[in-house]
């Protein structure tokens, strides 16, 4: 799947540029994208360094287990086949909590940890399990109580009510989440157990 998407974007972009006579743009644009990635990664390195360090402390001290007990009941029904004491629960719950508070960047290391824990049970390495897909549905839904960046943009552009979009935005993302989870549920049944 990723092969097709990547090829479509990359070669589609190049072909479109050739057709519209913007051939000179192609290489600079490819390089600009790649250097954006490098910049992002440098920022991410500092961030992941601090956060994974913190995560390690939270894990060693047993803090994660405490926190996860509070949010757990909300997530349990979404993963009926995951054992109650599975290692993935704590980081999954922390990931969802961070996303809710609008700490998108803080959520990433937790999410990756959760994916690794889920992958330990994966009988078919390299293929997504239904738990992974449900978990990612939570992450591709942007359910957030505080979309900070946009509020910043709006305030800076002189909006009379920069925060007025919070509630509609939260409701819209909940609609998206519901659709994602339902789709995942249906397709998991349809595709058989893995």
């Amino acid at each position: 799947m990723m092969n097709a998407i990547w090829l479509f974007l990359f070669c589609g972009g190049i072909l479109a540029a050739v057709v519209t006579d913007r051939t000179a743009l192609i290489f600079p644009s490819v390089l600009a994208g790649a250097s954006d990635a490098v910049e992002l990664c440098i920022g991410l390195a500092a961030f992941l360094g601090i956060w994974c360090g913190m995560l390690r402390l939270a894990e060693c001290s047993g803090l994660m287990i405490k926190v996860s007990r509070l949010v757990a009941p909300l997530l349990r029904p979404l993963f009926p086949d995951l054992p109650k004491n599975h290692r993935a629960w704590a980081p999954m719950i922390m990931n969802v909590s961070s996303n809710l508070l609008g700490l998108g960047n803080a959520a990433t290391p937790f999410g990756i940890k959760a994916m690794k824990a889920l992958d330990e049970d994966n009988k078919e390495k390299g293929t997504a399990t239904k738990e992974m897909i449900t978990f990612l549905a939570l992450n591709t839904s942007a359910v957030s109580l505080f979309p900070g960046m946009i509020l910043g943009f709006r305030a800076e552009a002189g909006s009379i009510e920069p925060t007025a979009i919070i509630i509609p935005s939260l409701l819209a993302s909940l609609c998206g989440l519901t659709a994602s989870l339902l789709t995942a549920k249906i397709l998991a049944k349809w595709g058989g157990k893995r």
Partner: protein
Amino acid sequence: MIAVLSALSVFIVPLLLLTIPVYAFYRGVSVYDEFIDGAREGLMLCLRLLPVLIAMMAATSVFIDGGGMNFLVRFFSPLCDLFGLPREVFPLAFIRPLSGTGSLGFTSQLIHAYGPDSLIGRFASVAQGSTETTFYVLSIYFGAVAVRRFRYALFVGLIGDTVAFAAAFILTKVFFY
């Protein structure tokens, strides 16, 4: 409520940075050594992500700059007119799942060009806030565990984005007009 939330999001990070090490020390964890071990893990992870990010972001960049995005938008503009969606915002539906920085840039341009309290400005804000960079999220999380067969994960993510985008338009109308 909003004041509480914004105060919360300012204080939560410093609070975590303070509580976690203090609590760990209290529980007898060797904090300095464990922190360094964790940080090392984070850096290794970052190194593994870089090639994935280069591949995806280079492709997205040339797709937008080369005009592939324009073709895609033109192809869908009859659909746009059918539902009364502002055409100006529609490219966001395509950029958003592909590129977080790209869509932020696009949204901020719309807000500046049409005003933050216009239909376009509000719709773009709500849509940006309620959808995610699905491709990026999937490539980061699946990349970290070397999963290459996504099965129906992409479909699930994009369904969510599509529904959220449509809901954003309806809710903008309901809340503001």
